[in-house]
């Protein structure tokens, strides 16, 4: 137990290694194993598309073009990356405490619904204030939603994976009820939605880019989450809970406080994603908010091995895969499910590669 605690700070920050060679070895291990797994993914997926009748090289070249090949493709990728950064954090943060939360979709939907309701109620206040209040409301709603799953676990022993997933269904049903009933804009005939925010109250694009500000929020949130978890006492405590709950309790940490705050922050990230969807894309809350970003976030967090910094490149990769999926359909007549297959292969490969850590002597500390 003591040994485990002593090892924590050394293993936990592979991307900011110290100056010792051992740290470099561990850092290389943390990067090369996932990269190897992704290369294996590329080979298996290549075989899959070949079996589906497409040329693997052409497929990859199209994917590159669709995701990063032109300036338009880059913006397409970045736009799709934005919500995924935030929903992946909803999984990665609680994972530090050993909690497997998969209901980010529910927090996103609640964040979108509540921020849209606040926006509709306060229309007329200056846009910057309106958006600020909407963001706070959305984060509070999403945070409360995941904190609810955390509380059920903490105080009632309910498995947080199941409860967060079921809460997502409740959130979607609640949103549908509200936009079709009490919060419905009477003018939204065939697409029930909350009253529109209006163009003046929307979050615009990042200057010079056709990508909304959600991308910047997501990047800031990932960096903040990394600092919080790796560079603060709070984060150290949280990781200690994840490493060994009993040891953490004996060391005098409040497991309840750490869990509840972390769950709230996780939900707040997804809630912010929902608010951005409302304020930057849809202009109101409606059933279209349920687009599966919360579920893609689960894959991303696991592939990033729950590291908030690694979430950034992985989310970018998933954004790129999504952006290129259309081109595969249009040029190669591959079905939409092709990119789901790719995501699934990547997920399995990364999970399988987890067993390789510590197996290669080159990565092991000497002495």
């Amino acid at each position, binding site marked *: 137990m003591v040994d485990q605690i002593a090892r924590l700070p050394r293993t936990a920050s592979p991307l900011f290694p110290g100056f010792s060679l051992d740290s470099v070895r561990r850092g290389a291990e943390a990067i090369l194993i996932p990269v190897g797994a992704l*290369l294996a993914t590329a080979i298996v997926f290549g075989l899959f598309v070949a079996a589906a009748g497409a040329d693997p090289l052409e497929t990859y070249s199209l994917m590159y073009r669709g995701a990063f090949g032109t300036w338009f*493709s880059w913006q397409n990728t970045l736009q*799709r990356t934005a919500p995924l950064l935030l929903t992946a954090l909803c999984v990665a943060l609680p994972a530090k405490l050993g909690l497997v939360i998969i209901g980010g979709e529910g927090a996103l939907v609640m964040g979108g619904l509540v921020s849209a309701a606040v926006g509709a109620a306060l229309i007329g206040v200056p846009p910057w204030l309106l958006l600020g209040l909407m963001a706070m409301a959305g984060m509070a709603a999403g945070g409360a939603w995941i904190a609810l799953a955390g509380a059920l676990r903490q105080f009632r022993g309910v498995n947080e994976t199941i409860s967060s997933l079921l809460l997502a269904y409740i959130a979607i049903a609640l949103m549908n009820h509200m936009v079709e009933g009490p919060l419905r804009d009477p003018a939204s005939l065939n697409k029930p939605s909350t009253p529109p925010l209006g163009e003046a109250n929307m979050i615009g694009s990042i200057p010079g880019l056709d990508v909304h500000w959600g991308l910047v929020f997501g990047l800031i949130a990932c960096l903040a989450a990394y600092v919080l978890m790796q560079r603060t006492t709070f984060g150290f405590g949280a990781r200690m809970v994840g490493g060994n709950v009993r040891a953490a309790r004996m060391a005098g940490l409040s497991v309840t406080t750490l869990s509840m705050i972390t769950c709230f922050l996780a939900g707040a990230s997804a809630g912010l994603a929902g608010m951005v969807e409302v304020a930057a894309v849809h202009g109101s809350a409606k059933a279209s908010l349920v687009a599966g970003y919360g579920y893609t976030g689960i894959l991303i967090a696991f592939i990033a091995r729950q590291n908030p910094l690694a979430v950034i490149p992985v989310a970018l990769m998933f954004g790129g895969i999504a952006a290129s999926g259309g*081109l595969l359909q249009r040029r190669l007549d591959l079905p939409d499910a092709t990119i789901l297959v790719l995501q699934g292969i990547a997920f399995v490969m990364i999970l399988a590669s987890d067993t390789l850590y510590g197996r290669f002597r080159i990565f092991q500390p000497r002495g």
Partner: protein
Amino acid sequence: MKGHHGISRRTALGLLAGTAAGTALPGALSGGSPFPSALAAKNLTVGFIYVGPRDDFGYNQAHAEAAAILRKMSGVKVVEEEKVAETSDVQKTMESMISLDDATLVFPTSFGYFDPHMLKVAQKYPDIEFRHCGGMFKAGVHPANTGSYFGYIDEGQYLNGIAAGHATKSKKLGFVAAKPIPQVLRNINAFTLGARSVDPTITTQVIFTGDWSMPVKEAEATNGLVNAGVDVITCHVDSPKVVVETSERRGIYTCGYHANQAPLAPKGYLTGAEWNWITVYKDFVEKTKAGEKPGQFVRGGMKDGFIKTSAYGPAVSPESKAASEAVKAKMMAGDFPIFAGPIRTNAGKEIIAAGQSYGQTDMWLEGMDWLTEGVIGSTS
């Protein structure tokens, strides 16, 4: 003890392979362009975007079937993308079709694509024509390069109702519906009015599933209706597959919707209300190729060829066929208003007075928020 060597042979090979792939891959990706862009000069490239799978036996398949016919026209190139979410995803899909595939005529076919997605992209690309299925295009309000098209498929549902009215023994019909929105309510009402034109004691039990694609709930709703004594079912969800297959398995009759589901229910399928989108798409494409602007508020029903009915199934009686054909003939002649008074709502209020009637193009019908007498269910 191999393990004492710093690098095992397998690790070294792996590393080498990794490096080789790492250097070779970018070369393969940037070199050689498999994208002929010169082709686009003469061809008209048309983009279709679907919200669900294009082989769903339903809403999306109805569009995809028309796209497949367009594909065979000379000088037309069709690009399609399925399962595109009604988020910024669809905006990027439209832009991708325009900037990577040179599409100049785009059909985003799902209702939720209209506002804000299509309107936003259309402002950005004023030279590209966008036509949306189902949206309420308003000249002067929406961008000049946009438009919308839709069909009065409630005519098909009225004919479904006549077939159901003749086939039912229990006098109880069922309707599995997605959401209580005007388009859906109009179909439920038309179906019920058609059935009650055969026998005014017939009722239609409606169940709302809450969303457009809810296979499990659709199966539950169908089973629930059959258990309650319903013996003919129709639906308005994106894919009628589950409803039709479940009904066939339970040994009751079905009326189809969106596309032809006869292959799923060879015994119980009576007839169906189908879209005939090729009429619209062909017109749009021909106008565009001739250098004219395609229509911007395009609506039509049976007589315009926007709607068709599935061939009658084996269970349809000769009287039933005769009754349907008589009404269909009036529809083809353009003098069959479905919503002709007296019509009372199922809450007992007279909504359309005797002698009053609403033609298909009447905007009042587009805001329908009531259910006709004979429907068991409520709009909220």
